[in-house]
């Protein structure tokens, strides 16, 4: 959980190829949620099942997909 990793848009965050385990991903999402709230000053909730619905056939969730989802709930 405290490991520093370098990421790009294709880096898998969850699922196939991700370096985060399930709890690591949940923690990551919780922290991102908090930072996004501070950044956009809007009360948002990241809902994992909504992300899954956006990409039903993808074996993993990468940085690009996750950021698109974040943009959709903050815009």
């Amino acid at each position, binding site marked *: 959980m405290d490991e520093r990793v370098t990421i790009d848009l294709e880096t898998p965050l969850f699922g196939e190829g991700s370096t985060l385990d399930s709890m690591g991903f949940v923690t990551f999402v919780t*922290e991102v949620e908090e930072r996004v709230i501070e950044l956009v000053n809007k009360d948002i909730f990241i809902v994992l099942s909504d992300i899954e619905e956006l990409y039903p056939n993808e074996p993993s969730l990468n940085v690009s997909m996750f950021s698109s989802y974040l943009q959709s709930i903050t815009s």
Partner: protein
Amino acid sequence: MKPRTIVITGSSRGLGLGIAEYFLRTGNTVIGCSRSAGAINHPNYRHYIVDVCDESQVRGWVRQVKKDYKKIDVVVNNVGLVKLGALTGGTSLEMFKQFMDSILVSTFLVCREFSKLMVIQKFGRLINITSIMTELHVPGTCAYASAKKAVVEFSKILATEIVDYGVTCNVISPSLISTEASSAFGREWEREMLDMQTLKIAINPEQVCHLIEFFSSAKSDIVTGQVLHTCLVN
């Protein structure tokens, strides 16, 4: 026990109120909640009005609590529906769902949100209150006892998920407790209940607090996913 910040659900009456008062008396900071206004006026107590069966309310509430208190040490899931049930054949789906929502869904939502904070802070104690009813298999408790038993299983699974992060999750399963709710069922019901237990007296909320205290303290650091019954059944 060193002073802690303790969240107690359903703290406006009954067992929850007794737990909140006890932990305030013993020098802790207590955060309570219920659907109605709080009944405690104490400098170290704050009451939030929240329906813990409602996902968005719970998420908003936990976020607010985190903003207000930064670190939460202990969460006691006490909220639940206490009323006489019917035989399975006479239990409406609506009634069944009410029990599931108020007992199981509320525990799931509150544990889910607070466990995420506790994993990040790398410390926390989740304590879920169930009931001896989970062992008695009494006719007329198909909804209540099933929901409480599901809380036991849920707690054990959650305990395995968070154990590596310094967070424990345990269950307290008290025998008959004397509260307003239990006395409303009448003396006959109380006598029948006691007949089914090995402990032939009703316990009081303060006695339950001693068990919560154990699971909240460093003395229980190595205990997780466990159910503490106050007695056996006959």
